[in-house]
């Protein structure tokens, strides 16, 4: 007797359709599973046996072979419990086998037969919508997430018993409602208005958001670097639905979704500690999981205390920053996760932190500062356009009442979106370039044409500060962003001078 149906596995953030076949026959009543199951799938034998027994049904008392096709791909996760259990019940005659054909089932079983939500439901459901099928059945707990993929028909079940009743025509399963997007702003959501003073740094944040530039903040401890970075997502344009779905998929595969609101509607803000491992940053594991760079997809990756990160950790960031995705190769499988994020980093100007502080003296030696700065130099720094100096907060700014609060995120965001709109028009039809920061050098010269006046200013700055050719292109890009924020077509000298101001580290002010 053979029963078969479809289940879904995961491969990166793509669904892997798995054909589940169960064959029963004469012989010793063994229960074997073939088709490269990982340990979670192998353990499914125990869950399935217990769930079936606790529903009052019995396993066929025969030799049972479960095959998961395609046999050459490793199957991971517990979502195959439900299709395996249903095939067994079909083989035992409890469920009409014809009802299983053409349907797709996903769900982890608990010992009493209840269905548990599974990791990666959204990508699986999205994969199912591309398959030819007559119904996808998912656990009730994963229903709202699956509904985001707009797959039809979609049914949610609370337990194996409910699925069996549905297939026997004794009861009907319901379609789940799509997950509602959580409110964009709510009480406690970080807002730029919370930041007192810091006009320069706020402007740098706005520039970064407007042009998609990576940003490095340098300032003494307690000057508000982390606070500013946390508010960066609130001034970035809101996520498009497509972006939100993509980000949700990554979080779903990582098992990082919250139960109440499975849709990640706000741009993510990830701030890994500096002791993070390389695999934690880029993703990894024997069956790969997304890392911080992928969890920050379409959002902000914040590296606080940048020089404290291990050199190797900073090195592994280069490839994802370049490609917008990260490929992880492991013995079991090779997967690619999206990783298009904006990098925000923060550091002190010296090990003690006070070398730029107007009121406190620095206790570091020249050598210490030099070593400290050397840790962030190199390839990563090349990919950071904006070096923003953050000054300590003035007492007068702090003590001022709420009426002196800075501009709200919503207002800044409006300007940012306007600037982004200009960029979208400019780069329409150009593959891989979405904002000013994405422009390759050749394109930069073509697009950021300077007036003779601006040109002269830039020349002076380049000579005076000894800036490199690389810095030159970055300055052009940022000048363009400044002009976009203002809404002017050409880049004026004031835009150039602002851009030059963001190349602090090129100017070597600390090592003078």
């Amino acid at each position: 007797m053979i029963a078969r149906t479809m289940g879904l596995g995961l491969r990166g953030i793509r669904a892997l359709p798995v054909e589940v076949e169960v064959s029963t026959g004469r012989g010793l009543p063994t229960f074997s599973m073939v088709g490269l199951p990982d340990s979670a799938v192998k353990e499914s034998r125990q869950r399935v046996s217990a769930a079936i027994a606790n529903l009052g049904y019995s396993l066929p008392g025969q030799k049972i072979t479960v095959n998961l096709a395609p046999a050459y791909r490793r199957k991971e996760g517990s979502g195959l419990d439900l299709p395996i259990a249903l095939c067994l019940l079909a083989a035992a005659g409890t469920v009409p086998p014809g009802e299983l054909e053409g349907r797709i089932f996903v769900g982890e079983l608990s010992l009493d037969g209840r269905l548990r939500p599974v990791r990666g439901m959204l990508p699986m459901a999205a994969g199912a919508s591309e398959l030819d099928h007559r119904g996808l059945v998912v656990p009730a707990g994963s229903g709202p997430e699956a509904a985001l993929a707009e797959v039809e028909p979609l049914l949610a079940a609370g337990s194996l018993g409910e699925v069996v009743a549905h297939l026997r025509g004794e009861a009907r399963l319901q379609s789940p409602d799509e997950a509602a997007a959580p409110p964009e702003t709510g009480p406690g959501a970080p807002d730029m208005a919370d930041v007192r003073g810091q006009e320069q740094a706020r402007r740098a944040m706005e520039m970064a958001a407007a042009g998609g530039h990576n940003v490095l903040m340098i300032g003494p401890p307690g000057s508000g670097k982390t606070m500013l970075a946390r508010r960066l997502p609130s001034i970035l344009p809101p996520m498009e639905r497509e972006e939100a779905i993509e980000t949700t998929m990554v979080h779903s595969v990582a098992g990082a979704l919250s139960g109440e609101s499975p849709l990640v509607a706000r741009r993510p803000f990830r701030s890994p500690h500096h002791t993070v491992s390389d695999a934690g940053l880029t993703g990894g594991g024997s069956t790969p999981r997304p890392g911080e760079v992928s969890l920050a997809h379409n959002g902000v990756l914040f590296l606080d205390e940048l020089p404290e990160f291990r050199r190797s950790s900073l090195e592994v960031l280069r490839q994802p920053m370049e490609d917008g995705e990260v490929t992880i190769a492991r013995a079991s499988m090779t997967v690619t996760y999206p990783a298009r994020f904006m990098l925000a980093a923060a550091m002190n100007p010296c090990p003690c932190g006070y070398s730029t502080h107007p009121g406190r003296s620095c206790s570091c030696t020249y050598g210490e500062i030099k070593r400290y700065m050397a840790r962030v130099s190199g390839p990563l720094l090349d990919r950071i356009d904006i070096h923003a100096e953050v000054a300590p907060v003035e007492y007068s700014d702090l003590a001022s009442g709420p009426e002196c609060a800075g501009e709200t995120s919503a207002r800044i965001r409006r300007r940012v979106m306007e600037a982004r709109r200009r960029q979208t028009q400019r780069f329409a039809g150009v593959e891989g370039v979405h904002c000013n920061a994405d422009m390759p050098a050749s394109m930069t010269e073509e697009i950021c044409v300077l007036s003779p006046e601006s040109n002269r200013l830039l020349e002076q700055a380049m000579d005076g500060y000894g800036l490199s050719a690389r810095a030159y292109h970055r300055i052009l890009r940022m000048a363009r962003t400044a002009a976009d924020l203002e809404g002017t077509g050409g880049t004026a000298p004031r835009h150039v001078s602002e851009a030059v101001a963001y190349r602090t580290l090129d100017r070597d002010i600390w090592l003078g």
Partner: protein
Amino acid sequence: MSRGDWRAAEEFAASWLRDRGWSILARNWRWHRLELDLVARRGSTVAFVEVKMASAGSRTMVPQKLDRRKRDHISRAAAAFLAQRDITADCRFDLAEVRGEPGSFSMSYMPSAFRPRGDYTV
């Protein structure tokens, strides 16, 4: 407990099975080191029955009496038995726990007490 008691217990289990429509294919079947207490057949089902004696006061639950090694041993013996007799059937592994003294036996019987861990080839 003497060997005679054990024989009597096995006989008790066999007759209990016969009363329920099973025919006994083998008793105390041995092949090399492999051993089966009782093999019974009813229709297309073959049951391999392990007979255990329990002293009157023992409170151990039945399935725990069979550790993994013993289960493997029985599974392997069953595979050998089926191969030798050239039988194709639905198989199950039962456990019969006999208590008491000869003449006043009582028995708890557990059908499908376990499933073999793997395929055993002979």
